């Protein structure tokens, strides 16, 4: 690799590190400004002891300050792991960190993610992989944080035994996930971006079955903040504008060209737009995803709260790793039309989250066209309403679970159809 290219990568790393640290710092400052130091930090501590299953909006539970500090803490944990593993900051790690921070507004906490990360590390040790090779799995696998919380605080255990059993459950979970993650990639061939969503959903099916067999009943949770505040409403649009500004500053006169080039990629895993095109173009794309996502919520009159902001942060992150406006709109259209056909409100929590997270199926539209993307979105909405209860709400990436299953169905059908006329004359 040339010295010029090495310098470009070093600059990319510096830009992203500064940007990510700025986002995390902004979360802390905004949180304290919203609720004050004492309330924010006491709320943050309270959040560590919540079951955190779907849907547990931390904003509704402990307020804006505690939620933003929790998100920053989870993000800092992820960033430290990336730096320790000496992995380059890129589209994949950018997506992982923003996803972690987003889901820390409604489920992830530093306490419930660490045992899972340690379990992934142990799995790597067993098969002779370095932690850097399993880093992406470790970061995304934190979707099963609520499994740790559920075992620790909801199963009737107390004191040290609760902590020990909960931590043990998290380590075992993390230990088993890499094997599943690699296998389920082949199910959908990379056409669902949230592969760990399918991985964790698959695992959580078994975990939930064991919990139910042992007599545990999952109580439905629906904490959903409804009163919009200016901080919650403008947080993502402001962040998006900052990302677009940074992108234009970084890419300079190539901004438009790189952005257009990104729209031409299918988005199929792994599509690291920062490598394939440029950091600047990827940040502009990420910012546009955030702006259009926010605009959608405003237009339909939806709520800005922990889960929806978490969703917006996730699509911003994946704006550097597979999602763009061109491959997203057909899938979102499919979800919207399906909700109208089945008489569901666009502002209902499940539908609203599906409209944001369905962009996991963007590569279906990117590779097979608008109609395929629309059908995928339509199926996704129907399925995602069922998958949450199957897995007891312990897998935070429920849309990733449903999206992975939908992509598997679509890929199977398309591959089967394309197998016609393969014999020789």
């Amino acid at each position, binding site marked *: *690799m040339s010295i010029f*290219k090495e310098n470009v*990568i070093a600059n990319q790393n510096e830009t992203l590190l500064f940007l990510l640290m700025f986002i995390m710092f902004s979360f802390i400052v905004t949180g304290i400004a919203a609720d004050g130091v004492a309330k924010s930090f006491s709320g943050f501590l309270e959040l560590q002891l919540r079951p955190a299953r779907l849907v547990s909006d931390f904003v509704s539970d402990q307020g804006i300050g505690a939620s933003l500090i929790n998100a920053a803490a989870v993000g800092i944990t992820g960033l430290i792991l990336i730096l320790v*593993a000496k*992995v*380059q900051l*890129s589209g*994949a*790690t950018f997506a992982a960190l923003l996803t972690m921070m987003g889901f820390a507004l409604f489920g992830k906490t530093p306490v419930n993610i660490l045992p899972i990360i340690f379990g992934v590390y142990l799995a790597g040790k067993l098969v002779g*992989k*370095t932690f*850097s*090779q*399993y*880093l*992406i*799995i470790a970061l995304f696998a934190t979707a099963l944080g609520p499994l740790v919380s559920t075992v620790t605080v909801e199963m009737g255990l107390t004191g040290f035994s609760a902590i020990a059993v909960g931590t043990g459950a998290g380590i075992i979970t993390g230990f088993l996930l*890499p094997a599943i*993650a*690699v296998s389920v*990639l*082949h199910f959908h*061939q*990379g*056409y669902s971006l949230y592969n760990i969503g399918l991985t964790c959903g698959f695992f959580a099916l078994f975990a939930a079955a064991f919990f139910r067999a042992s007599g545990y009943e999952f109580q439905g949770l629906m904490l959903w903040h409804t009163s919009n505040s200016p901080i919650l409403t403008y947080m993502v649009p402001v962040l998006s504008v900052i990302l677009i500004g940074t992108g234009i500053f970084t890419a300079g006169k190539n901004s438009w060209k790189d952005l257009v080039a990104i729209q031409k990629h*299918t988005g*199929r*895993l*792994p599509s*690291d737009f920062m*490598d394939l095109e440029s950091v600047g173009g990827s940040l502009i794309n990420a910012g546009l995803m955030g702006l259009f996502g926010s605009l959608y919520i405003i237009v339909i009159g939806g709520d800005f709260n922990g889960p929806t902001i978490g969703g917006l942060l996730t699509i911003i992150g994946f704006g550097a790793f597979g999602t763009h406006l061109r491959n997203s709109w057909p899938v979102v259209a499919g979800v919207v039309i399906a909700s109208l056909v089945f008489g569901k409100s666009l502002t209902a929590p499940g539908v609203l989250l599906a409209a944001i997270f369905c962009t996991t199926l963007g590569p279906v539209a990117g*590779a097979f066209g608008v109609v395929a993307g629309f059908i995928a979105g339509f199926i996704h909405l129907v399925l995602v309403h069922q998958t949450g209860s199957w897995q007891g709400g312990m897998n935070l990436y429920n849309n990733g679970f449903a999206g992975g299953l939908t992509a598997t169905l679509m*890929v199977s059908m*398309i*591959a089967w159809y*394309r197998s016609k006329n393969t014999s020789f004359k």
Partner: protein
Amino acid sequence: MKRKDLILHLIGEISSFLLESDPRRLVISLHQEENGLHLCVLDENPHTEEELKEIDEALNSKKRPELAGYYGSMTGHDMLGSSRLNLLGWQVKHCDVSSIGSGIKIDIWLGGDAFQNEQFTIPKNR
């Protein structure tokens, strides 16, 4: 993953790439040692300089252990869609892409930490 499976997936991905342009002939040559291997693939289709450059860049991209360790498992498993040489590029030691007569020659060297250049026909300046 057993070495045999790894080799099969490598051959699958690179040959899938070359078969997309429907060559009349495709030659695959493999040389294995304990610590590494050399895979050479040739076809007889014409390729432009720009194509050669793109292939070279994809196969000699920066090593990405975090992507190779996870998404690298998709190498040679493509059921749908075009092949992706960057999946290979993240994993290999070195690649050479050259034009030979009417076709292309792609040399790929892969190995562990104990990989020894002199056991293979790697050009001296690599």
